[in-house]
């Protein structure tokens, strides 16, 4: 089994697990009262069945098919940078505020795309974040978290 087949198997198996969860969970939905004949469980059951059938089909297709040995080259480090950037951004969005949180995100994404100058990236990201912040709050009336810059912005 080569790597592409392994990845596809992993994906299909996860979807099978999800399908089983939906199947199991659908039985727990409260039926509620009223004269609705179908009830809130029918569609979830249908979707669970659909997920199970299509993921099994995908599994079979994947095993039958031969893949090029070097179909995809996946680099891990960029993924780690982006993932940590995303987690940092969710955690800091409200405490630090929009401007600083997305500047941090911008630096991490730039690093993932092989930028080697984090200070310059931070500068570019900060300028972008400040411009975007003012356009969308003062200009377009949205509310974005101010965070620790509350007094300054």
């Amino acid at each position, binding site marked *: 089994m080569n790597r592409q087949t392994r*990845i596809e198997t992993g*994906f*299909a198996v996860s*979807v099978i697990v999800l399908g089983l969860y*939906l199947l199991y*969970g659908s039985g727990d*939905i*409260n*039926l*509620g009262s*009223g*004269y*609705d*004949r*179908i009830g*809130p469980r029918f*569609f*979830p059951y249908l*979707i669970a069945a*659909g*997920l199970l059938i*299509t*993921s099994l089909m*995908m599994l079979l*297709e994947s095993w039958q098919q031969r893949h090029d040995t070097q179909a*995809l*080259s*996946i*680099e*891990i480090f*960029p*993924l780690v940078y*982006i*993932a940590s950037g*995303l987690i940092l*951004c*969710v955690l800091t*969005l*409200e405490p630090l505020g*929009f401007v600083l949180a*997305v500047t941090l*995100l*911008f*630096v991490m*994404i*730039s690093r*993932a*795309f*092989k*930028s080697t100058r984090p200070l310059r*990236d931070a500068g570019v*990201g900060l300028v*972008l*974040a400040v411009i*975007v912040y003012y356009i*969308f709050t003062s200009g377009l*009336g*949205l*509310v*974005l978290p101010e965070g620790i810059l509350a007094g300054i912005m």
Partner: protein
Amino acid sequence: MESLGLLMDGFSIALQWDNLLWAFVGVLLGTAVGILPGIGPALTVALLLPVTYSLNPVSAFIMFAGIYYGGMYGGSTTSILLNTPGESGSIITALEGNKMARSGRASAALATAAIGSFVAGTIGTIALTFAAPALADMALVFGPAEYFALIALGFTTISSVLGKTPSRGLLSLFLGLALGVIGIDLQTGQARFTLGLLPLLDGIHVVVVAVGLFAVGETLFLASQSKGAGEIINVKGWTWLSRDELSRSWKPWIRGSLLGFPIGGLPTGGAEIPTFLSYAIEKRLSSKPEEFGKGAIEGVAGPEAANNAAAAGVLVPLLTLGLPTSATAAIMLAAFQQFNLQPGPLIFINNPDLVWGLIASLYIGNLMLLILNLPLAPLWARLLKIPSPYLYGGILVFATLGTYSLNNSVFDVGLMYMIGVLGYCMRLVDVPVAPAVIGMILGPMAEQQFRRALAISQGDPAIFFTRPISATLLGLAFFALVSVPVYRYWQTRK
């Protein structure tokens, strides 16, 4: 010719100064995001939804339409100059267009694409003007059973067309349907799959899913590929066609348009099929078939026209039936719902200003796009020089901004990022993401119509098979579901 009168009313709305301005903003943004890899019209409209809360719906839709058409123009520029098609409709354009650009004929390729897009967009919009009201009249007789059957047909055809194999398209569709179930059931008020999380009671907004799948999923995928950036071909001077190039282009433009509009208008949707067909036809009809594969102008003119006419065609089922057949159309449907409007036959009766203002603005937007793209193509091409760290960093800043602004909720942002990881996994295993977005928005509608139909029939499922339109649509849906696997099986047996 009732349509013409209504269209004139539409022009009187679309030609108001502020609406012209919104159309201009739309085509400008649309061209830009069409050119930039990694961001397309679906993502752009999704990100702009929160901004348009306070806008009047007519202006918002005029801007969205500009983004939609503009994205098609911009996509061809990237295909030709960078050989990386921005969206699936421009795959074929890259084939011949990039070869032309490499042999120093970039400006001719850009010009035939831009003028072809204009011709096709105009023909497509004219066809839309007359086809839409006619179809809307027919759809007035649709009841819940017919709507359910129609959505089922859309589900099966869209999923079989998109993706490497039908099972993958359908898997994506069911993932979208599963996401759509989360939240309070509209009929009974019961919570479904909310995992005890309060923010999930209202359901997941389609923008959260679309932005996650398109922006974050795509960014993760591209960052993990060690492939270097492609070579950008420079264009200098004006883009224009010589007499010979023009005479080789105009017939493919017309043929592509006539091919693209009806196929785009089918409930299957998809802009790729007409572009493939157009390419095959032009290759057969060309007086110089040996040039194909080396930069034949017909191979750019025809598919590019087919792509744009199909884009106009997609608006027919969206406006008249409320059936989106592309990711961008699905987001536009979400935009209609945001303004408490339901596209379908009644919108032509209840909101004629909106519908006809929108259609009229398509004519205007198309003209703006021709003017913006033809002489200014080299200027637009400079957008391709934005370094990818800043491009994707910027895309994620906007993705975070747009998602947060939906409900001012950090929960939504986190959820969007997680759905992005799902989108990345789907990319890795060749599962298309568009059916998930379409399933997510149409799933709750399908369920509602299904349950309504059975309430009318007092629980008798025969209602779906005894009403002729519903029975036909379900028959077609079943045929679409089984025909592709059967055909493939038969092919392998041979």
